[in-house]
Structures are given as structure tokens and as C-alpha cells.
């Protein structure tokens, strides 16, 4: 088969549907990555317009440009859009588009999940924009502190839009994170070991794990606050055993890692682009990887530094002050590695390089003001002033927007296949860079002379007038610069000439394919044993196109790629991907029904939508199964591999594992909240305890013992080729026993709206009931699959997934029931 015939055959297999319909049915990472990025840039433009409104309002004292109520919505939505609808989704979109190309594979691990995540993001983000246009947008600041956001002080639907809309959008972040982790660990080019992974893949892995562990506390906080607002469960009301500081803990457990979730992808971009611009390789690859890991974990130990003024004991202040200064070390190591890379190379001042230099200048200033606010006495002085506003913009714009502009111009030829011709970008660079520094140096100054943040106006005569006017002029210059970038990109996308395949002479795999890339990325999967394979073998792109790698023969006529061993990169299975489908968009739409039902208090809609999601999820899972045992299949080069569905740890098992990591963090955050209220909140202990009888603990214990035994018995019987009816029946009985134990807690617990203790027991038992229900459905599903011939001695992976969920549920049941009953037993 020649190159063209191979291309045509692969294109026929992998292509999305033509025309408008293709937008809604595509599951290809190229399409979805572009859609993610385009949507996030639209949200960035909306957020940017809101920023201009803020600066117009503050340009002069006693401005009548906006009413205070409108101003509150505008600054809240500016922060919310930039953090949740622009920065994280841009990372997701960029990674969805680029990661498979860098890793040398044909798509991400779960193509339909990519699509589902995108549509949840699009629908959830749209909900917030509709609220903004209708004048009922959130208005309590992007971190939504109660009691300002409690029902007493925020009567309308504004706060609910934030809590429900953002939680809907976070489905997208969690989906993308699971996808990225599994893709980096298992979906790489054959031979690509951990040591030879492109450095961006390390950053993507680290950030995805951070999303899985950082977002659940916020999801929990949003659920608890919404439960308080909707059903009177007093988690944050001091008079009923709650504490508004609990929200701050949960929010910043997410919020501080969030800063690094935004910065680290940009650091990955810098570590990738900088060596190419300097015409050398990255200095200290191992140091950079270790620093990224250290930075990620250390960032989870800093959350209280956002709460230095809340009156916590001095020892707590000292812990978090020390940890906050420590985090500068791994950041500094990365900065020095980049400077060293520049030193050993011969840098060329192309446009991406200019943005990287702008990053250095800006981010280092933001980092240093970060160390200043890590020092408690200084933080007490500048807390909630414009100094903090300036600091966070130096970190986020300098540390994310500037590197992403470098990325935009660096990878534009890869995405469009065109050579940049129009040079508006250079002018835009200077307008944005100078405009940004004029704006935010002035904002630092305003903060140091005492200007509070979030005030909608100020009196003249306080020395703030000139500073604010200068800042506003700078911001409009910056906005003109961003508009010019949009025009520049539009011209270059539609009107520039065709370019060469690797215009920067880079060494990573995304430049080893035709541009714009075909739907299948690689005509064959190359063996990789170097971080910059194109430097080692300049002929590699031609050899890939000639089908000299693995899976170069499309004869089986289906979407195939490889999974590899995590550490060594040795290929271990062939994965068959699903084709185009409307299932993800339909499921995202129906999922939206749950959130809309909660938002508009149309409670009958929630169970209907949930049943719809369940039915669609079952259809989704059913279509993944394989019935015949295909045995070993040829993959090329004399290598034969089994299908992934015949492995003991199929991709679904890996996805479940990392989803359960996020789930466990959610559960841990709930236990933390319970312990926090117990030890710190006033009005504890509660007026009455739940006294353990026989029913609840007995049912729970029976289920906890039965579930792990039954799953192992099921596996043993399947391995021997024997029927599964009895062990699956036992597993179902055990699971329902746990579910009944949860119901007993709900029936016997003190009232959910009288004290935070009762409310917490309701949430703990609700969590348990939900998990038991999920496992129950999985058991019925696997029984139906066994009956239909989807399971065999060779195809046991699906049962292992059930075992994973069952073991998790049994474990959290044991911990929950101890947490629920122990206080009552001791009392």
C-alpha cells in the first residue's frame, strides 16, 4: 500500500462526519481540541470586555458609569469566567488537541468522554453567560464567601447560578483530567519510556492529577452551600453548628492549587518552546520534571495563606507562611533551567520568544510579590487591597496568558498548515506588554496607598485619581493589543500561504505529520526512544507516512491504536476506539437537565434527567464490549498483541481508578468538613446524637463483609469458565445491604435542618447510598453482559472494574458508618 492509499484508507476510518452535523457527532481529539480552544477564547473575550467595564468604572472618582449592583456582577463574572471558563478549558483544549500528537498516538484514551466534557463545558458556561445577559449573574465575588452568599444575604438566583453552573462545568475538568492521566500513562508511542516522554506530557500529567485532587473540595463546597440554600442544611450558619470558615477552607483547598493548575501548563509550554527558540535542548530535564511534581504537591499545603486575616492561631499562620515561601524553590529551579537553556543555546527573537521574554519579566515580579504576601505581617497590611489584585494578575497573565500567546504563535503553523505572513502580532505584542505593565504596576500602587478591592467607586482627594486613570488607559491599550491578536490570527488562518511541515525545526513528534494534521495523526505508530525523535532521525516523518511503524495496515477497517506499559513504553495491547456518535452531546444535554432542575427548583425534572443519564450511560458502556475472543492480532513488525478488552486492566479500569481518586478526595474533604465543624465551629456538640441501634450497623457490616468476598468469588468463577449468577447475586445482596444501612441513617438521624451535625449525617449517608446504587446498577449490567456473551475467561476486565467500584464502596461504607455512629456510641 502506497502513502496516498494508506492516507485515504485511514482518513475514511477516522474522519468526522462532513459539514455542520460533524460538529455534534465528532469524537476526534483534533476537532474537540479546536472546539475547546475556540470556546475558551470566546469566553476570554467576554471576560476581557467585563474587565474593560471595570476599568471604565474606576477611571474617575464618583463614576456613574455603573450601579453598584451591576459592578458586583461584572467583577464577579470577570473572575469566574477567566478562572473557570477560560484558563482551565484552554489548557484542556490545548492538551486534548496536542497531547496525542506529542505522545505519538492517534487519539486520547476516551474519545467520547472528550466530547461529553466539551459539551458539559459549553452548556454550563452558556448558563452563566445567559445569567449575565439577564442581569441575574453571580454578584458575591468569584470566591463566593458565605454568609454573603447564604440565603439570608443573597435572596435571588444569582448565587445558585455560580454554584450549579460551575459544578456543571467541572464535570468537563474532571473528564479531561481522567482522560489526560490515562493517556499519558498508557497511550504513548511504542518504546516511549517515562524518561523519553516530551516534557509537556509530564506537565499535563501533573496538572491532570492536580485537577483530580484539587477540584473535589470545591465541588463538595458548592454542593453543601447549595444544600444550605435550597433545603436549609446549616453547614455555614454559626447559630446552627455550621461555620462560614468551612467554606473558605474548602474553597482554598481548591483555589490555591488552582493557581498552579493554571501556571504549570504554561510552564510546560515554555519548557517545550524555549529550547526550540534557543536552538538547543532543555537544560536539566530531570530537574524540571522533579520541580513540577514538587510544585504541584507543595501547592496543596498553602491554602490557609488566603485566610491569614481570619484569626487563626499564630502556629497555623507560621506553618502556612513557611510552606508559602518554600514553594518559590521549585518555581525558581524551573526558571533557572530556562535561563540556562537560553545560555547554552543561540536564541532567535521570533514572536513566540518575545512572549516568553515577556513571561520572564512579568511572572518573576508576580512571584516576588507572592513571597511578599506570604509574609504574614505584610499580608495583614495589603489583604483585600488592589495590591492583591495586581499580584494575582501578574501571576496569572504573566504566568499563563503570555506563555499561551507564545504557544498560539508557535503551534499556529501546526494547526493551520500555513506560514505566518501578516505581522500584526509584533505590534500587538508591544501594546499588550506595555499596556499590561502600565495597568497593573499602577494597581499595585493603588493597593499600597490603601485602595480596597471590589469597591465600585471612590471619593476624590485620596490620591487614587491619577493612578486609576493611568491604569485604565493602560488597560485599554492592552485591549487594543488583544483585538489585534485576534485579527492577526484570523488573517493568518484564512489568508496566509501554505507552510512547511516543521517551520521551527523542532524535535517533538507533533511536527512529524502533515499539517494541518489528519484525523488519525500518524499513518503508523513509530518506535520512540528519544525526547526529541526528529533530531535523532530526520527521516522519521517519511517513514511514518510509509507505514513503517506499528498499525500501519488499516485492513481491519476500525479505529485502532496501542496501549503501552507505564514505565517502559513496551506495547501491550491494541485499543479499538468508537466511531462518530451523538451520544456525548445528548448525554451532556440530559445531564444539564439535572442542573437546570436544581437551579430553577423544578425538582421533578431531576429524577427524570438522572434516569435519562443512566439510560444513556448504559448504552454507552454496552457499546464498548466485545463478544468474540479475537486472540492475538498482528500489529506490524512481526509483533502480535491482544485487544485491550481482553486485558485484565482495560482502559475503563484505568479511568475508573483515577475517577475514584477524585471521588476519594471528595470523601476525604467531607470527613475534613465534619472534623472541622466538630473541633472548630461554635455550638458543638450537637443537642442530640444518633444512637446506633442494631439495624444500621448490622446491615452495613454485612454488606462490607459480603461485597469484597463476592467480587473475588465472581472473578474466580469467571476464570474457571463457570456461571456467575450466585456470586453476582451475593454481591447485589451485599450492596443493597449497604444501601439499606444508609437509608436507616437517613431515617433515624436528627433533623437535617436543625443542626450541622444532622445535615452532615444526611450528606454522608447520601454519598453512601449513591455509591451503593451505582454499584448495584453495575452488577445488573455485568450480569446482562455475562448473559449476552460479553464476558469470557479471556475478557474479564469489565468484572475487574466492578470489583474496583465495589471495593471502594465497601471501604467508604466502613469509614462512613464509623464516623456516623462512633460519636453517638461514645456519648
Amino acid at each position: 500500500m502506497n502513502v496516498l492509499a494508506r492516507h485515504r484508507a485511514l482518513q475514511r476510518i477516522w474522519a468526522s462526519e462532513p459539514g455542520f452535523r460533524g460538529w455534534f457527532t465528532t469524537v476526534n481529539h483534533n476537532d474537540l481540541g479546536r472546539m475547546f480552544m475556540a470556546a475558551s477564547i470566546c469566553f476570554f473575550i467576554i471576560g476581557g470586555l467585563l474587565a474593560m467595564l471595570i476599568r471604565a468604572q474606576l477611571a474617575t472618582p464618583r463614576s456613574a458609569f455603573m450601579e453598584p449592583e451591576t459592578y458586583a456582577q461584572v467583577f464577579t463574572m470577570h473572575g469566574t469566567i477567566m478562572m473557570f471558563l477560560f484558563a482551565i478549558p484552554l489548557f484542556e483544549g490545548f492538551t486534548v488537541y496536542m497531547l496525542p500528537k506529542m505522545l505519538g498516538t492517534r487519539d486520547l484514551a476516551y474519545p467520547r468522554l472528550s466530547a461529553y466534557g466539551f459539551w458539559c463545558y459549553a452548556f454550563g458556561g452558556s448558563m452563566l453567560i445567559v445569567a449575565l445577559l439577564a442581569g441575574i449573574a453571580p454578584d458575591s465575588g468569584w470566591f463566593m464567601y458565605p454568609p454573603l452568599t447564604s440565603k439570608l444575604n443573597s435572596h435571588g438566583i444569582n448565587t445558585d447560578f455560580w454554584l450549579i453552573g460551575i459544578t456543571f462545568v467541572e464535570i468537563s475538568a474532571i473528564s479531561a483530567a481522567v482522560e489526560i492521566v490515562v493517556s499519558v500513562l498508557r497511550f504513548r508511542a511504542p518504546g516511549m519510556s517515562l524518561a523519553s516522554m516530551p516534557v509537556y506530557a509530564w506537565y499535563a500529567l501533573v496538572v491532570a492529577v492536580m485537577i483530580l485532587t484539587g477540584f473535589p473540595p470545591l465541588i463538595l463546597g458548592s454542593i453543601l452551600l447549595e444544600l444550605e440554600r435550597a433545603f436549609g442544611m446549616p453547614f455555614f450558619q454559626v447559630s446552627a453548628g455550621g461555620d462560614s470558615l468551612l467554606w473558605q477552607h474548602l474553597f482554598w483547598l481548591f483555589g490555591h492549587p488552582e493557581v498552579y493548575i493554571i501556571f504549570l501548563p504554561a510552564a510546560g509550554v515554555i519548557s517545550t518552546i524555549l529550547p526550540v527558540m534557543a536552538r538547543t535542548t532543555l537544560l536539566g530535564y530531570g530537574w524540571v520534571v522533579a520541580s513540577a511534581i514538587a510544585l504541584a504537591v507543595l501547592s496543596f499545603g498553602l491554602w490557609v495563606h488566603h485566610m491569614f486575616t481570619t484569626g487563626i492561631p499564630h502556629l497555623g499562620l507560621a506553618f502556612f507562611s513557611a510552606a508559602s515561601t518554600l514553594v518559590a524553590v521549585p518555581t525558581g529551579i524551573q526558571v533557572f533551567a530556562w535561563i540556562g537553556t537560553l545560555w547554552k543555546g543561540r536564541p532567535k527573537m521570533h514572536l513566540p520568544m518575545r512572549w516568553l521574554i515577556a513571561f520572564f519579566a512579568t511572572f518573576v515580579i508576580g512571584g516576588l510579590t507572592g513571597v511578599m504576601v506570604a509574609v504574614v505581617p505584610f499580608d495583614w497590611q495589603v489583604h483585600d487591597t488592589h495590591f492583591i489584585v495586581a499580584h494575582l494578575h501578574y501571576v496569572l497573565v504573566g504566568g499563563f496568558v503570555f506563555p499561551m500567546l507564545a504557544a498560539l504563535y508557535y503551534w499556529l503553523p501546526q494547526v493551520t498548515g500555513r506560514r505566518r505572513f501578516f505581522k500584526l502580532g509584533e505590534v500587538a505584542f508591544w501594546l499588550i506588554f506595555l499596556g499590561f505593565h502600565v495597568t497593573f504596576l499602577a494597581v499595585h500602587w493603588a493597593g499600597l496607598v490603601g485602595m480596597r478591592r471590589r469597591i465600585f467607586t471612590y471619593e476624590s482627594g485620596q490620591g487614587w485619581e491619577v493612578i486609576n486613570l493611568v491604569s485604565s488607559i493602560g488597560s485599554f491599550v492592552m485591549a487594543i493589543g488583544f483585538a489585534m491578536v485576534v485579527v492577526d490570527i484570523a488573517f493568518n488562518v484564512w489568508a496566509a500561504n501554505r507552510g512547511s511541515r516543521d517551520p521551527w525545526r523542532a524535535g517533538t513528534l507533533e511536527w512529524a505529520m502533515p499539517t494541518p494534521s489528519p484525523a488519525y495523526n500518524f499513518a503508523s505508530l513509530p518506535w520512540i526512544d528519544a525526547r526529541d525523535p526528529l533530531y535523532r532521525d530526520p527521516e522519521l516523518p517519511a517513514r511514518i507516512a510509509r507505514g513503517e511503524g506499528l498499525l500501519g495496515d488499516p485492513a481491519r477497517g476500525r479505529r485502532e491504536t496501542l496501549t503501552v506499559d507505564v514505565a517502559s513504553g513496551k506495547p501491550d495491547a491494541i485499543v479499538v476506539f468508537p466511531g462518530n456518535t451523538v451520544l456525548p452531546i445528548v448525554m451532556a444535554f440530559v445531564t444539564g437537565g439535572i442542573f437546570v432542575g436544581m437551579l430553577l427548583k423544578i425538582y421533578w425534572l431531576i429524577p427524570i434527567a438522572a434516569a435519562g443519564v443512566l439510560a444513556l450511560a448504559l448504552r454507552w458502556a454496552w457499546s464498548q464490549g466485545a463478544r468474540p475472543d479475537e486472540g492475538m492480532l498482528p500489529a506490524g513488525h512481526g509483533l502480535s498483541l491482544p485487544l485491550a478488552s481482553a486485558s485484565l486492566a482495560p482502559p475503563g479500569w484505568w479511568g475508573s481508578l483515577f475517577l475514584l481518586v477524585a471521588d476519594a478526595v471528595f470523601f476525604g474533604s467531607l470527613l475534613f468538613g465534619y472534623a472541622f465543624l466538630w473541633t472548630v465551629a461554635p455550638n458543638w456538640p450537637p443537642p442530640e446524637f444518633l444512637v446506633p441501634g442494631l439495624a444500621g450497623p448490622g446491615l452495613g457490616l454485612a454488606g462490607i463483609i459480603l461485597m469484597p468476598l463476592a467480587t473475588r468469588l465472581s472473578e474466580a468463577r469467571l476464570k474457571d469458565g463457570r456461571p456467575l449468577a450466585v456470586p453476582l447475586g451475593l454481591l447485589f445482596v451485599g450492596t443493597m445491604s449497604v444501601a439499606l444501612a444508609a437509608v436507616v441513617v437517613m431515617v433515624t438521624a436528627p433533623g437535617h435542618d436543625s443542626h450541622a451535625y444532622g445535615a452532615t449525617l444526611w450528606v454522608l449517608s447520601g454519598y453512601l447510598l449513591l455509591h451503593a446504587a451505582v454499584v448495584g446498577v453495575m452488577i445488573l449490567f455485568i450480569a446482562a453482559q455475562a448473559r449476552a456473551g460479553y464476558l469470557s475467561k479471556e475478557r474479564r476486565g469489565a468484572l475487574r472494574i466492578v470489583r474496583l467500584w465495589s471495593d471502594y464502596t465497601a471501604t467508604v461504607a466502613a469509614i462512613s458508618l464509623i464516623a456516623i455512629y462512633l460519636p453517638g456510641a461514645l456519648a
Partner: protein
Amino acid sequence: MIEILRMATPLTVWLAGFSGIYGLHGLLCSARGAWLFGLTGNMLLVLAWLLLVLLQAALLYGLSYRFASPAPFCRWVSMAAAAASLVASLWSLFPVVAISHCL
């Protein structure tokens, strides 16, 4: 997967220890005057800190020798992470010996 665990464990242990000692501090402050086996709150915090430091030192030793990765790159990253965790444990929790715990 074992290689990823080697790299992730030391810093995760730091995070668990750091959060645990902060939580212990909250617990001791909420139950003023509490003691365990004759130990005061300050002594318990110092003991917990020393245990964490010892655990981190053991992890560094283990990842350098007995449980060292066979892959040089993974060994290097896991040892760097363990060294960083040891320094983080010493630095971020040293206030237990410098500051009164419920002031």
C-alpha cells in the same frame, strides 16, 4: 505504575503529615489542657513533627537503596522528590518548636 508511586509517595507523605499536624494542632487547641500519656500539646506536636522527619529520611534512604527504581531517570526523580519532601518537612513544620501552639 510502581515508578509513578515511587515519585509521588514522598511528597504525598509530606502533604499528609503537614495537614495531619495542622489538624492535630486544631484538635489540641479545641480541647485545651488535653494530654496523652502525660504529654502536653506542644510535646505531641513536636513528637509528630519528629516522626514525620524520620519517616521522610527513611523514604529517602529507601528510595536510594532498597526500593530504588531500576530506571536511572525514575530513580533520580524519586530521590529528588524524597529530598525535597525531607526539606519541606523540616522547614514548613519547624514552627512547632518556635511558637506557642494556641496563641
